[in-house]
């Protein structure tokens, strides 16, 4: 008599088989793996369920820094679609042949905001920044995150680069830059408007929405990667992102289109 003949083992095996069969339903739906720039985390989390409901496909999102994703994609990371925080990285991937040609489009135009978790710290202007009475100013790493680069441009425009140099702390991506401010470790920081903005206003803390003229436009491009070429879910996602429902969500987070 083998172990597999024992009645209880047979029951367990049959139950496991039954469970496995239950989960393999929905053969018509495909899965799209998306690499999403950290600043777009909240909008994507709002768009994903709507997309899944509308199309029946599954969306699996990974959030991180644009520079990091570029390296990972070049080393075979299994993404179908890439939502970057800038327009140069998708262009670079395109010129290296890692994308489906012609699939690149701008899905959002980002806004930079100087934000503090303290609701009384900023008064809607750059006064506190110029006064310099803070110990730490948080930005995203300018070499890896376009919002970090934009922050440096703003500091240059205001002539404050040298003055704040000793107080700068860099987050590895815009999410970490935001974390430093939200935990109070940095009194203020340059973050993406989408991280602190919902339905027409800054949802907590205090802010100075930086005028567009002070930094190069943060055009955020999306592109379909080679892996997503024959994936219907990937094509459906690209279409959905260009559509009106997605546009409504994207704009509600403070992006422009």
């Amino acid at each position, binding site marked *: 008599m083998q172990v597999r003949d024992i009645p209880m083992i047979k029951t367990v095996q049959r139950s496991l088989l039954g469970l496995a069969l239950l989960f393999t339903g929905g053969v018509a739906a495909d899965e799209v793996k998306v690499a999403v720039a950290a600043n777009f985390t909240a909008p994507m989390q709002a768009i994903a369920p709507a997309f899944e409901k509308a199309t029946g496909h599954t969306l699996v999102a990974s959030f991180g*820094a644009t520079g990091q994703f570029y*390296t990972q994609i070049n080393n075979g990371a299994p993404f179908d679609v890439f939502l970057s925080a800038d327009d140069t990285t998708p262009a670079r991937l395109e010129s290296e042949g890692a994308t489906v040609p012609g699939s690149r489009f701008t899905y959002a135009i980002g806004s930079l905001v100087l934000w503090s978790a303290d609701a009384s710290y900023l008064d809607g202007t750059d006064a506190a920044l110029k006064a310099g009475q803070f110990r730490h100013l948080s930005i995203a*790493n300018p*070499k*890896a995150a376009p919002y970090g680069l934009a922050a440096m441009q703003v500091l240059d425009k205001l002539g404050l680069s040298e003055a704040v140099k000793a107080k700068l702390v860099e*987050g*590895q991506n815009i999410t970490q830059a935001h974390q430093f401010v939200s935990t109070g470790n940095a009194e203020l920081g340059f973050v993406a408007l989408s991280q602190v903005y919902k339905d027409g206003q800054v949802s907590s803390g205090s802010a100075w929405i930086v005028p567009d003229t002070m930094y190069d436009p943060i055009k955020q491009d999306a592109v379909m990667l080679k892996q997503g070429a024959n994936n219907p879910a990937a094509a459906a996602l690209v279409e959905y992102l260009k559509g009106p429902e997605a546009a409504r969500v994207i704009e509600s987070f403070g992006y422009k289109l």
Partner: protein
Amino acid sequence: MPLSKNDLDAILLTLELASLTTVLLLIIGTPLAWWLARTDSWLKRPVGAVVALPLVLPPTVIGFYLLVSMGPNGFFGQLTQSLGLGTFTFTFTGLVIGSIFYSLPFVVQPLQNAFEAIGRAPLEAAATLRASPWDSFFSVVLPLARPGFITAAILSFAHTIGEFGVVLMIGGNIPGKTQVVSVQIYNHVEAMEYAQAHWLAGGMLAFSFIVLLTLYSGRSHKMRAL
């Protein structure tokens, strides 16, 4: 050698951090390990478990809790602020504190094992020869536990050199203060500066290998207790 000033600063900073952490941990860890080795108190198990926590916790967990507690709203941060020391996030001191937590079990456990291996007999013999507890500790225990101390020092140094998750959470990437080699390599890779990443990573690999090789060949003659 195409290493920038930031790269060289990062190397120096990392060596400073690892050395300081090792020295401090040997000072803190020795009494703790001695107590753990000799006590029969019910606290032995819970304290031993807390000491071993950094072995199993992802470094980002340690880093995250440090970020929150060292900040102005956290327990530790409010303590340091009331002492007029400000907050320790984004400072070298903060990194040292983080590293002490991170490498604690790597010092305490080898020392505890070494102390336990000595047993009671040598100490009882020393006591019958009128050695005071301090005297017997320094003249009997320390020499016998020397392999344990060497292991503890090597492990703590090497482990702190490789520290990444904790530094990433509380460092803020400040050149000369919190930008250690592991973070700098990560920065280079993210910025697609692969040549510099190779130089730094390869250099640290070679350095670590040489250090370990030297120390292990020095110890092979004395490999008894460990």
